[in-house]
């Protein structure tokens, strides 16, 4: 099983962190452009999914799957968005993203007094994030 890449957006759609592993083919556009397109797509999928829902959606959009990869989406109530691309057989990715949020994001970014809400540059976070991803059974 494989994890391809990870995007973290804040509630305004700014890319806070990007990491990739085992991503063989690049999209051919700049990272900023790619992040903007990604956020735009998620934003419209999310609002469409909520609109079309036959009853009041609790969680809304969770993931989509193609025959090559699956994109999983987890949004905290505070609006931080975690997007991860995995292969199609990975399971319980949502729980994994929740764990990532509480064990990595909150611990090494939110509790870092030097972080001012923009893109994360902390090396400690990068290292811990990388370890956490590589240790997961999905990797």
């Amino acid at each position, binding site marked *: 099983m494989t994890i391809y890449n990870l995007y973290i957006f804040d*509630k305004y759609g700014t890319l806070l962190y990007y990491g990739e592993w085992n991503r063989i083919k690049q999209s051919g556009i700049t990272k900023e452009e790619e992040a903007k397109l990604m956020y735009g797509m998620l934003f419209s999928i999310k609002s469409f999914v909520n*609109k079309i829902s036959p009853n009041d959606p609790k969680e809304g959009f969770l993931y989509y799957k193609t025959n090559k990869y699956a994109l999983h989406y987890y949004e*905290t*109530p*505070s609006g931080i968005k975690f997007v991860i691309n995995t292969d199609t057989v990975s399971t319980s990715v949502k729980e994994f993203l929740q764990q990532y949020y509480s064990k990595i994001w*909150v611990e090494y970014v*939110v*509790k870092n007094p030097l972080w001012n809400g923009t893109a994360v540059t902390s090396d400690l976070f990068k290292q811990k994030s990388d370890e956490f991803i590589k240790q997961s059974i999905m990797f």
Partner: protein
Amino acid sequence: MARQSSRLESKKVNSELLTLTYGALVSQMLRDFENLEEVNKQLERIGYNMGVRLIEDFLSRTNSGRCLDMRETADKIQQAFKMYLNVQPTISNWAAATDEFSLIFDVNPLTEFVELPADVSNLRYSGILCGCIRGALEMVQLEVQCQFVQDQLKGDASTEIRVKFIRRLQDATPAGVLIITSFVDVHLLISRSVLLCLTLLANTYAAIIAQI
């Protein structure tokens, strides 16, 4: 920093240490600012900045989703006080429209050894708590007004924080992309360049049709 806090997690911090440190902070601020209003403002600001971060910790620990009404929000605030300060305020005095409620504290750990001198009776000593509530709720798209209406420090029977719902903040729209509400009322997201192309196409079609 982060490593330190995870080491502290299993242990509890002595509440007297917190009370005394907070007291030292407030009295130092009184000396530095020499202006009660400014101190009140700064305490609220400190609380706000704490709340903005504390909410993330709260959400990740409790795994809670979005609240659907203010009653649920009030319960979460109560839960958070229990978690972080080990006090359980009572929720009461709901307004008829359920948009306003009070948190009533029997004990306030911040004011345990505190006596307010007469010349600073306008000081909102625990103003940090209000700021904290406001900051935390703002991060989950709730704008509230939060203030002390009763305070044991000022001789009232109990300590009461009033929380008033102002409005739901809208989900932020992404920058650099344009959102259009089309006639089927589905939000479409089209980048500026695509939009330009569409306009051009539409104009060309209009021109062709005009010729026919």
